């Protein structure tokens, strides 16, 4: 006898739960076709030479060797590093600043109104926003040259200039308040017990001190989430350079995601593209893991 509780044989407990499996079936089928199978294929094809309509041929680590000696790939890494650096600093601090400001509003109605307005920015499709920025950056009709001339800066080519293109793409999200990140951080601030804040006021604790010693530690979980989300987003999203510059001029705004896209769809080199995807996946998992470890150890 194994235990005191009589255990049903596996097949009988499976049969008894037949409804449960039936309810799961549509989802499992969909995910098998549109998630699991492509993921397995993506990982597998990184080890194949697979160009155009040709049969895929196993070539071991050749793609990886080629990738790690490809100057274009390193260029794209350098560029995406700047995107990441910007997004995980300014892209986290701006929502934090706005959340703090919202938190300091005395009127709940005003708080709700402002919060709704920031979220309302999400209703404009992101591609439309990018296209408006392309218009703003137009050296002739766009207003950007008029704006900088006030600051005493001469006319620029913006997206067309080798030295200005990357900065222009990165700065196009001005004022960098992602409404989703804002909501996440604001929810964290609202969860701070009111008694704690009252106590800090009674202790004569200044606002800056309160921010550093109460608000910041208590929203560190939300900040960590926002940090990871923005790094992952900066790492893989490439529709901005795709629409604004196509990676150019030259490869001034090329990022790994876009390089993968172009390898696959412009040069029909699917094996090489899969390899780029593979390396990106590893990098993203590593970053997520490292961030989780790092921030948790700080809290202990």
């Amino acid at each position, binding site marked *: 006898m194994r235990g005191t509780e009589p255990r049903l044989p596996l097949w009988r407990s499976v049969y008894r739960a037949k409804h*449960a499996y039936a309810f*799961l079936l549509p989802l499992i089928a969909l*995910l098998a076709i549109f998630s699991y199978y492509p993921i397995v294929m993506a990982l597998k094809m990184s080890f194949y030479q697979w160009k155009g309509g040709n049969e895929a041929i196993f070539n071991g680590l050749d793609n990886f060797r080629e990738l790690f000696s490809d100057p274009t790939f390193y260029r794209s890494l350098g560029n995406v590093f700047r995107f990441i650096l910007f997004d995980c600093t300014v892209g986290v601090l701006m929502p934090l600043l706005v959340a703090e400001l919202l938190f300091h509003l005395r009127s709940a109605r005003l708080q709700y109104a402002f919060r709704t307005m920031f979220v309302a920015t999400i*209703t*404009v499709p992101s591609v439309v926003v990018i296209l*408006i920025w392309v218009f703003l950056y137009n050296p002739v009709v766009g207003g950007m040259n008029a704006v900088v001339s006030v600051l005493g800066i001469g006319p620029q080519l913006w997206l067309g200039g080798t030295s200005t293109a990357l900065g222009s793409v990165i700065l196009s999200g001005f004022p960098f308040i992602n409404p989703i990140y804002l909501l996440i951080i604001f929810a964290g601030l609202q969860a701070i017990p009111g008694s704690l804040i009252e106590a800090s006021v009674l202790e004569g604790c200044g606002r800056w001190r309160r921010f550093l010693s109460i608000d910041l530690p208590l929203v560190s979980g939300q900040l960590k989430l926002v940090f990871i989300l923005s790094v992952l987003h900066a790492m893989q999203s490439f529709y901005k350079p795709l629409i604004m510059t196509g990676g150019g001029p030259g490869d001034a705004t090329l990022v790994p995601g876009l390089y993968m896209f172009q390898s696959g769809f412009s040069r029909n080199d699917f094996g090489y593209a899969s390899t780029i995807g593979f390396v990106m996946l590893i990098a993203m998992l590593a970053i997520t893991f490292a961030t989780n470890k790092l921030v948790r150890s700080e809290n202990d």
Partner: protein
Amino acid sequence: MRNQRAVSAVAAVLLSLFVFFSFFPVLIMLLTSVKSRLEISLGIFRLPTDIRWDNYGRAFRKVIPYTGNSLLIAVAVVVGVLIVSSLAAYSLARYRFPGREPIYYSIIALMMVPTVLVLIPMFKMVAALHLLNSYWVVILPQVAGGCVMAVFLLRSFFAGLPEELFESFRIDGAREGTVLRSLVLPLSKPILGTVAVLNFNTSWNDYIWPMVTINKESLKPIVTGIMSFTNDYSSDYGPMMAAYVLASLPLMLVIGFSMRYFVDGLTSGAVKA
């Protein structure tokens, strides 16, 4: 206390400034959409002197077919996600069966997988299945992708429903499908609303996948369609911006009317994370 009021006032001023800058591109879009070519060339920050509504007339005819496609796709995706994910989430929340936890985690783990990774194998697959240039090629992957987050949100909500309700239903001899349809779903309207709005938004904004899988103009959704007419207008910015405004309207309306679901859903998801 006066100090507090002053801080609140300063916060309100700064927030107004940030709201203004957040909407700045939208303001430029609206301003430019009613200007003539001449007025645009005079400077994009100037207010228009005579308002050209006919820019909208010209844009309207181009935008409508794309908008229809986007609406059809988005509605199909929302319906698909709601059906598939509530079935699965109900199963994962209310049954005990062998393999439940591994199945749940293998679904949730998909949130970690970057979409760029699967772009190429998925493209090769749908090409082999002859799905290119159809609504299905956009709808099915979007349903699959949307279900992951939806199962996460719905499962925790369904699991929180009180057990007594279920027992009374089962005593009456209700069938499994009936329990889900007449007990669980009516009680879960807010969270289902959140799932619906989030997926409508994602579907409407999806750009890269429709761009590579649909090149037939009559089937393109609005976001990739925008690219086609951006090229058509070349430098005729008035009608172009009018078209952008029209392209944004349906999403504005849908999210505008369901802002509460949107904000609450995102906030509750954030607290759990």
